[in-house]
């Protein structure tokens, strides 16, 4: 059964079809959230929340974009909302600890740590998200704008300036 059939059945209330759809997109969603949050626990929690929201709003999915893109849109907005709620909390220390743990895991696997991840973690998520969506997932500026509720020009400048920043930070690190 292909995705379109599953979506059609899920919209009619078929639990099995909806479950299959969610199962098929689960790994993609966790991986996306992992890249934008850089925090495994937050990524897991947001995946659960996204799935709950998807179950509630499946009737509203109009098929204009791919199902996975629709999920990314929900996840992105949930992450933005969460960040807005927790803005006052100073959680940089927690993020630092998470990164240290990831570095330790990488070292245990005899892998070299990617400095670019440290830089990405320092960037504001409002800039990190469009960079990941544009340069890793290949979405257009317009699509990202729709996902994040921003103007296309805003997305473009955020990606461009963000990337310049990453390049500068990388150059500084390499220069050390």
């Amino acid at each position, binding site marked *: 059964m292909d995705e379109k059939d599953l979506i059609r059945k899920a919209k009619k209330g078929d*639990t099995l079809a909806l479950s299959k759809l*969610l199962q098929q997109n689960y790994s993609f969603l966790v991986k996306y959230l992992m890249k934008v949050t850089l925090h495994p626990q937050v990524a897991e929690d947001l995946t659960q929340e996204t799935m*709950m929201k998807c179950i509630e709003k499946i009737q509203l999915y109009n098929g204009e974009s791919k199902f996975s893109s629709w999920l990314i849109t929900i996840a992105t907005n949930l992450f933005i909302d969460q960040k807005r709620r927790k803005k006052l909390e100073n959680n940089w220390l927690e993020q630092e600890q998470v990164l240290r743990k990831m570095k330790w895991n990488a070292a245990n696997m005899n892998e070299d740590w990617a400095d670019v991840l440290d830089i*990405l973690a320092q960037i504001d998520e409002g800039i990190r998200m469009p960079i990941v969506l544009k340069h890793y997932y290949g979405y257009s500026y317009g699509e990202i704008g729709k996902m994040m509720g921003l103007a296309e020009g805003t997305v473009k400048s955020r990606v461009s300036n963000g990337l310049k920043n990453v*390049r500068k930070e990388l150059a500084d690190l390499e220069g050390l």
Partner: protein
Amino acid sequence: MKDYDSKNSNSMLDDEEELTVKQLTDGLEKLDQWNPVSTPNLQWFQQNVELEKKRIRKKQWKDLLTFISVAVLVLSVVIAVVYRQPILFLYFQLVGIILLPVALNKTRKKVSNE
């Protein structure tokens, strides 16, 4: 010459940008390798979907009951006022009509669509 220089610097910039993008995607791919995702079985998803649907149905019923209760209360108050003190009802209507343009002109906050 200037043109050539600017083209040259542009292509250098593009190369640098490409290199940054490459480093970025490599780093993110490594992140996937270090954090492998294990997808739960279909039964787990079915249970969650069922539970969530049940919770949504319960919430919808609760919302409907709250709505009906509030509606009945408001209607009762209005009917009581009309019968007991019709002049007060007219005052309320007048205030409503005056405030209507203000309420309609109020700019609505844009919400992101999911």
